[in-house]
């Protein structure tokens, strides 16, 4: 089935235009108009390669994994574990055991905050940035309130880049144990210089976690080249299923970390007095995992790799440049976040029109964008806005869709002035 997926995808990838044919939802109508889906940063649509792979798994080979001594179970176990190899390759991990499957990025960060966090001592610091998603803020606040560590926040510049000088200052007292920073902002589109951050963190004796929820869709990640210690991503933004995410961490760190959730599959032996843990990765995967979703994530990664990040990146850079130009011509529109290194996520406000009204009026025209605080309230306060509208792109997004967005925004503004 995997081979089939790859072949179908590479045919489709013959031309980026053909990619749209892989996404059945793109032919839907909304309020009588063609769907223009510009909310991929919230969650990407699924290609038929993923949908078919999941359905086919349930139709022909499903069984619970790891504990079964029969063929169906062995086969499903192999398919599940093969995705671990695949993700290890996708992220450039040193070993397959470094890949832990979680529900999403949020759970992956919470796992680190609970498990690695339990090794931190009062007075040690977790350093995050002003542009984090709530998923990379709240788990650390909860750890702070539980364990008495300090939560420190490093600022962004006015154009929405990470302030590297301030980062250096925030690391300078040597108390920072962990730097947890996004690899790409879901509001500003800013791509952070992960390697430089990792070097600074390591020089200050800190470990570093990157939230790759947004970035992993757009650029090839190599955790060893980045010299990261932890990396998280989420399947549903990666053209994959919901209910599946990934934590990567260095083997030696994972080995030291206590388990997070307890239950079946994560143990070596259980007695009422004392239990012992399975080796990684299983130590961190308690209970029946999201088997079908993991296999679906494998299909999504095969799909992405059949297209290739060169082409994905080129497509997206061209689109982003086009969009910045087209939106720049809409009078009253202000793009929020103008860092030089950026990806296809564009937040904006429009004078006289509230982002809610923008979203609803675009929706009436079939155009799906997001409006609100994008789970980044502190960043909104820093930027002095209470909400923005946000258009974000996927591999299926076309320049024509962006032109329609810009033209519709002009009309919307017309109502309000």
């Amino acid at each position, binding site marked *: 089935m995997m081979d089939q997926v790859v072949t179908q995808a590479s045919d489709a990838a013959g031309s980026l235009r053909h990619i749209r044919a892989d996404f059945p939802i793109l032919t839907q109508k909304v309020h009588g108009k063609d769907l223009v889906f510009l909310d991929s940063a919230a969650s990407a649509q699924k290609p038929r390669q993923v949908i078919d792979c999941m359905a086919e798994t349930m139709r022909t080979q499903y069984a619970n994994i790891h504990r079964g001594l029969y063929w169906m179970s062995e086969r499903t176990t192999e398919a599940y574990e093969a995705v671990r190899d695949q993700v290890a390759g996708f992220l450039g991990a040193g070993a397959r055991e470094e890949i832990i499957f979680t529900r999403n990025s949020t759970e992956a960060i919470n796992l680190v905050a609970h498990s690695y966090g339990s090794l931190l001592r009062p007075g040690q610091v977790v350093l995050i940035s002003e542009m984090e998603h709530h998923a990379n803020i709240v788990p650390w606040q909860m750890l702070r309130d539980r364990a008495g560590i300090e939560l420190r926040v490093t600022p962004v510049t006015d154009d929405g880049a990470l302030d590297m000088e301030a980062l250096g200052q925030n690391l300078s007292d040597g108390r920072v144990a962990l730097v947890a920073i996004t690899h790409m902002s879901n509001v500003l589109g800013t791509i952070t210089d992960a390697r430089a951050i990792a070097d600074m963190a390591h020089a200050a004796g800190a470990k570093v976690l990157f939230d790759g929820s947004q970035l992993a869709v757009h650029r090839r990640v190599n955790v060893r080249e980045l010299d990261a210690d932890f990396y998280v991503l989420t399947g549903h933004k990666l053209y994959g299923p919901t209910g599946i995410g990934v934590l990567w961490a260095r083997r030696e760190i994972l080995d030291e970390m206590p388990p997070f959730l307890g239950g079946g599959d994560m143990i070596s032996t259980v007695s009422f007095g004392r239990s012992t843990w399975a080796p990684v990765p299983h130590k961190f995967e308690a209970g029946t995992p999201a088997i079908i979703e993991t296999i679906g994530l494998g299909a999504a990664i095969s799909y992405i790799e059949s297209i290739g990040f060169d082409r994905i990146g080129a497509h997206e850079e061209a689109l982003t440049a086009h969009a910045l130009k087209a939106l720049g011509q809409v009078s009253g529109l202000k793009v929020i976040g103008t860092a030089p290194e950026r990806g296809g996520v564009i937040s904006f406000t429009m004078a006289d029109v*509230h*982002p*809610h009204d923008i979203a*609803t*009026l675009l929706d009436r025209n079939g155009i799906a964008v997001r409006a*609100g605080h994008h789970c980044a309230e502190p960043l*909104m306060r820093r930027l002095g806005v*209470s909400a923005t509208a946000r258009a974000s792109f996927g591999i299926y997004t076309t320049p024509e869709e962006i032109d329609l967005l810009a033209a519709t925004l002009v009309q*919307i503004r017309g109502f*309000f002035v």
Partner: protein
Amino acid sequence: MTQDDLYRTVVLQRTKTPLYAGKLAQANAQGQGTNPLCGDRVHLHAVIDAQGRIDAIRHETRGCAICAASADLMAERVTGQEPARIRQLHADMEAAVQTGNAPAALGELSAFAPLHRHRSRIRCAMLPWTALMEMLNDDKDR
């Protein structure tokens, strides 16, 4: 693009040129509503008489067109009304946005009935009413 029936002239007008925006120096009651999802906020100032009737009311709204117009039309509609009548209007408004059918008594407030097809926006229109209900309940407790 055709103008959405949700954004009727009355809604756009009241957003651009509200008739009941501001404060009241003599206010003896206040109400507040916040939508944590977007930070939108409605602050009400009112003069309420001994029977609980609203003699005058003003709103300070930071929010979208739906929210701002709803606050303004609400203020107009509840001026001079007694608590029982206001609670009835609140129920009618809730019914209108949930079902799309506006009871005749709503008058211009029926402009929000199309929200039943934009369910995520219902709380924008209801935020002023949340603030109003908070104000009435505070008043009763006094």
